[in-house]
C-alpha cells in the first residue's frame, strides 16, 4: 500500500521516474536534493556519466568516511569518488560545457514552473537568498531540463502555474516536470500530462495544477518498482 504523503516515498518515486529518462551515454548534471535520488535508479545497461559543475566528469558514489578525499567534492559540497574515465577541469570550462549545450540533461528542484516553461527556483523575496549559483547557466544550457518537485506546496497550493510570480531563474527553458503526482512535458504548444503516478487520477492532477494541462487521449501511469 502506497502512502502518498510519505516524504521518502515521494523522493523515491520522483528519483526513479527521472532516472528512466536517462539514455545510455548521456552526460547528466544532478542538482542537490531530490535530483540526487535519480542516481540510485539508473536502469541496468544504461551508462550515464555524471557531471558536477565544480569541475569533474565521471562522478562515483559517496565514499565511506575513511575514504573521503578533501579535494574531491561535488557542487553540493558532498564528498564523492572518482570512477574509471573520470577527468577534472577548471570551473570555466565546466560552465562552457554547461552553457554550450553539451549536457544531455540537467535535473533541478523547482519552486514554481509555468505553462511557458519559465522556472523560478532561486529566491523568495523576503527570505534569505542563497544566490543562483550555477542554476541559471544549467537551465539555459542543458539540452533537456527536468524540474523535480512535489506537485504542490505544503499548504496544497499548485506550484505549476499559469505564470510564475517568483523571480525567474530563466525563461522558457523547462522541458519536463516530474512530481510525486505526474510527469508533464513542456512544449511550445503547452504543457502536456504525460503520466500520472500510481494512486492518483487525472482529475486530481488537474485540480492540483493551476496551469492548463493538455490531456492526451492516453495518459500513462508510473509507479515505484518494489
Amino acid at each position, binding site marked *: 500500500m502506497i502512502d502518498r504523503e510519505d516524504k521518502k516515498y515521494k523522493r523515491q518515486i520522483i528519483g526513479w521516474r527521472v532516472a528512466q529518462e536517462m539514455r545510455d551515454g548521456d552526460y547528466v548534471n544532478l542538482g542537490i536534493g531530490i535530483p540526487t535520488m535519480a542516481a540510485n535508479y539508473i536502469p541496468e545497461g544504461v551508462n550515464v556519466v555524471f557531471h558536477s559543475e565544480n569541475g569533474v566528469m565521471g562522478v562515483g558514489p559517496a565514499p565511506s568516511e575513511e575514504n573521503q578525499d578533501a579535494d574531491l567534492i561535488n*557542487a553540493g559540497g558532498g564528498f564523492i569518488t572518482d570512477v574509471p574515465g573520470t577527468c*577534472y577541469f577548471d*570551473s*570555466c570550462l565546466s560552465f562552457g560545457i554547461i552553457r554550450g549545450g553539451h549536457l544531455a540533461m540537467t535535473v533541478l528542484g523547482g519552486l514554481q514552473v509555468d505553462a511557458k516553461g519559465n522556472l523560478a527556483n532561486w*529566491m523568495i523575496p523576503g527570505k534569505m*537568498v542563497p544566490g*543562483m*549559483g550555477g542554476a*541559471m547557466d544549467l537551465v539555459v544550457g542543458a539540452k533537456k531540463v527536468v524540474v523535480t518537485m512535489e506537485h504542490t506546496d505544503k499548504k496544497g497550493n499548485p506550484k505549476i502555474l499559469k505564470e510564475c510570480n517568483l523571480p*525567474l531563474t530563466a525563461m522558457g527553458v523547462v522541458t519536463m516536470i516530474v512530481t510525486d503526482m505526474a510527469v508533464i512535458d513542456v512544449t511550445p504548444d503547452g504543457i502536456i500530462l504525460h503520466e500520472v503516478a500510481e494512486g492518483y487520477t487525472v482529475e486530481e492532477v488537474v485540480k492540483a495544477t493551476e496551469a492548463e494541462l493538455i490531456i492526451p487521449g492516453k495518459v500513462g501511469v508510473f509507479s515505484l518498482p518494489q
Partner: protein
Amino acid sequence: MPKIITAQEAANLVKQGDKILIGGFLAVGAPESIIDALVQKGTKDLKLVVIASDYEDKGMGKLVVNKQVKAVQVSHLGTNKEIQRQMYADEIKVELIPQGSLLERVRAAGSGLGGVLTPVGIGTLAAEGKQVINVDGKDFLLEKALHGDVALIHAHKADKQGNLIYRKTARNSNPVMATAGKIVIAEVDEIVEIGQLDPERVVTPSIFVNYLVKK
C-alpha cells in the same frame, strides 16, 4: 621567476580597499594559509570576487566573519549565514552573478576581452543594469570584464618557475582567477625544482604567477 614568500608577506601585499579574486569552491582549493594571514593582519574594506562564499570557519568566510569585507561579487551564499546576515544588515554589498557569467567575466579580464555575450540571466534579476545586445535575432547580456588588484589562489604543486598543477576538484576557479589579478599569489602544497612537473600536465603557465607561498 616568482618570489617565494610567507603567508604573512602575502597578506602584506594586499592593501585596504583592494579587489581580491579568491580561488576555491566551498573552501576546497581555497588559499587558507593566506586567508588566515589576512585575518591576522585585519586589512579592511576588501572587495572580493569568489564563486561561493564558503563557510564561516573556512575559506573566504573567515574574512567575512572578521568584518574585513566591504563588497562581494559571488554566485552562491547558501553555506555562509554570516554573509547573509551582513547583507541584510547593509554591512556588506553583495552582487549576485550567475556562476558561469562570473567566471567568464574574470576570464575576459585575464584574456584582454572587454566582455562576453551570454544568454544566461536574460529575463531575470541578474539582467538588472546590464546591456542587452541582440545578435542575429537572439538576446544576450553583456557581461563585462572583471579585474582584480590581487588574485589569491591555491594549487597542488608549483615548480620554481611558477608553473602550477592542481589536484582533483581543488582546481575549480583557481586557474581562471590566476589570469586576472594585477598581483597573483599562489599557495601551494609543494614547490619542486624546474623541470620536475610534467609539461603536459601544467594547467597554469608560470607567466601568470608572481608569488608562491608554501602552505
